[in-house]
């Protein structure tokens, strides 16, 4: 009986906002900080993307198909790569060409679009699909929603879009006594559910370089032994790609760990690596019922990292309220700006859950001084965007004798 190891990496960078003061509203100031985004992107390219891609390509070639990985790559990442470091696109294309890399679809903007409207969600998924078709000539069969946000309803919508599988957190509140190490089926729709083994995933992505962790330092052979000892049919190791070189610096030995992991895993006869598409063929052992939203974030595995406080709810509701304006304004540039603002990171920066003690959120949002600044900045931008949308709507609709309902 084989246990399949799935290594799936999520690749993402948001379009960060510039410091947008209340005095900038209505002044035609650019929303996004190209200089900052370029700086962060190039640093991540140097520290993570280039060396990690190189390493994975080497491993795939070395193990002649016995080592496979899977990726999801956001539209906002691809836009920035095309602008700042086009060679990275080539590098991912080379990986995909090996035939040992599976790709997953998601919302183009790494957004909470599902909470805005089903229409907006579907449009963003289709945009992402189109992007992958063009860049990689690839049609993903598995879907990952932003931050592994999941519910029965999301599964049904994703199934309707034609996907065969979807990713979620392997969380005990809906798993109960069951193990994440099997393929399941979503409740209410015939779509396979692939659950992240968060313990084994976080051993790499969070704990790897933590000196006070009892298992420190983590070596490839020790980790492979843990995998080998894990009962079940599949072990889903899902993590941010930036784990390699960005969150865990090169100096921690993360690349050496990864370089040696395949040989130690493959030394066990009952372990192999598969791409995530392989899991679709496997039999679902049970049905999982998630009637509420879950995610892979924080200790709470819910939406509280994005919609946990009053600022976040205010900002998100404002963003959501702009949907009808965006539709009526019919302006491609403004629509794009609105969608870039939907990227979940912007609202994540406003999280105050652990702000008072300093926390994990911090290093994802280093450029923002505080959740309060993040909120104010975002709201100032939304105010400006609203003004611009209105300026488009009013002259056009009054031509036809329509009065904008929101005024």
């Amino acid at each position: 009986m084989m246990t399949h190891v799935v290594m799936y990496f999520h690749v993402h960078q948001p379009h960060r906002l510039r410091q947008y003061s209340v005095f900038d509203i209505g002044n035609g100031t650019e929303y996004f900080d190209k200089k900052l985004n370029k700086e962060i992107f190039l640093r991540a390219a140097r520290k993570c993307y280039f060396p990690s891609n190189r390493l994975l390509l080497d491993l795939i070639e070395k193990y002649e198909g016995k080592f496979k990985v899977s990726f999801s790559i956001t539209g906002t990442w691809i836009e920035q790569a095309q602008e700042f470091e086009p060679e990275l696109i080539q590098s991912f294309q080379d990986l995909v060409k090996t035939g040992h890399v599976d790709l997953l679809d998601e919302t183009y903007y790494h957004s909470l679009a599902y909470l805005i409207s089903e229409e907006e969600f579907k449009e963003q998924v289709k945009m992402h699909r189109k992007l992958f078709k063009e860049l990689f000539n690839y049609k993903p069969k598995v879907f990952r929603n932003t931050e592994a946000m999941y519910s029965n309803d999301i599964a049904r919508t994703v199934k309707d879009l034609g996907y065969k599988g979807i990713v979620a957190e392997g969380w005990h509140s809906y798993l109960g006594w069951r193990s994440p190490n099997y393929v399941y089926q979503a409740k209410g729709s015939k779509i396979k559910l692939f659950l992240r083994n968060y313990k084994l995933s976080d051993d790499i992505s969070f704990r790897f370089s933590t000196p006070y962790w009892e298992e420190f330092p983590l070596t490839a052979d020790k980790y492979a032994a843990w995998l080998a000892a894990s009962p079940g049919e599949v072990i889903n190791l899902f993590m941010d790609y930036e784990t390699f070189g960005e969150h865990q610096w090169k100096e921690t030995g993360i690349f050496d760990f990864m370089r040696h992991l395949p040989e130690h895993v493959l030394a066990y006869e009952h372990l192999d690596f598969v791409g995530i598409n392989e899991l679709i063929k496997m039999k679902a052992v049970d049905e999982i019922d998630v009637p509420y939203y879950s995610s892979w974030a924080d200790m709470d595995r819910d939406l509280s990292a994005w919609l946990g406080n009053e600022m976040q709810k205010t900002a998100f509701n404002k963003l959501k309220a702009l949907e009808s304006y965006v539709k009526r304004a019919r302006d491609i540039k403004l629509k794009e700006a609105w969608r870039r603002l939907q990227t979940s990171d912007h609202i994540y920066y406003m999280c105050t859950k652990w702000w008072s003690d300093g926390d994990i959120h911090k290093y994802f949002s280093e450029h923002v001084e505080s959740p309060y600044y993040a909120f104010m900045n975002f709201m100032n931008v939304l105010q400006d965007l609203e003004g611009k949308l209105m300026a488009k709507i009013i002259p056009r609709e009054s031509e036809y004798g329509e009065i904008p309902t929101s005024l």
Partner: protein
Amino acid sequence: MRVLILGWEFPPYITGGLGVYCYELTKQLSAKGIDVIYVLPKRMKKVRSDFVKVVEVGPGFEFGSYNEKEAMVFKGSIEDYNNLLVKRCLHESFDVIHAQDWMVFDAAVRLKKITGKPLICHAHAIEYMRTPHDPWSYIVEKEKTGYYNADLIIANSYYMKRNLVEKLGVDPRKIVVIYNAVDQERFEQQFRREHGLGNSKIVLYLGRLFVQKGPDYFLNAAKKVVERFRNVKFLIAGTGDMLPQLIKQAIDLGISDKVMFLGFVPEEEKPKYYAISDVYVLPSVSEPFGITVLEAVAAGTPVVISKESGASEVVRSAFKVDFWDVNKMAELILGLLMYPPMAREMSRNGKKEIKHLTWDKIAEETIKAYKMAVYG
């Protein structure tokens, strides 16, 4: 226990703090299981209460004000009322008499003598404090009658207790001090009414008006805020040698209608001012600590504070700004005015953060420091 409270006013008939006090007190007393009979002069407006038995005495009084011209009329009404009061209250049974200020002391003392029940006289104000240069002897005599015959006196502050002892010669051993509660909402309404603030947002500066406190930066920031946000008033509480200069600066900036100079604010009044403000600003050029920041945060007021202050190390849920960066200061004030959800979030988190900064903890830390110094 049944208390006979001899009062003066009750909602909706209220002319001052006494009515507020009696309303809040009787409400709480009855909630705590004390039977209250609240007696007051009958007036034009009918008084209603569902938590306390209200007895209105008399044909419908109009007391007028006690200036010299109307003194005779006023005195007459008081005497009439006190006579009726005694008669009426003899129909009631009670364990203790609680008389609210001099207007009812005459009747209170007579009731005590007739019934033998203990008398508590409550000192809300005394004539010597109202008109120190020219006290009306009629009122002073009523006060003396009440306080000399009382079994117990409740003074609303130690300051009041001192005055009772020094000015009226009351035995200090029978005086207990019970402060009045602050009814923040009422204070705010009254303050807004008196200062014509309407529903303006309020931005507060509280501190001495010295160069190192940076009040001039506060005004410069105010100017920028006003350009974007009209419905706001800037309060400057405190005095100092910069006052004339600041008044001129406000005029020169064209924002004199947006700035109010409140003068000196006594220590015990400070929390009320924090609480009515939407933003507290500490623009200090240099500030070793800045205890006002913690006071404001404790009152739930979001703060914009100078980076040059010790307090900025302690509170994370605050906006911090270089004192000279007036644009930024204005931007942050504006943010808090424009986005109430952010102000509320900052207020909530700020309060949580400073919970551990109690004087008890500070004393413990200091003792630790002593021990370190003594024992190494």
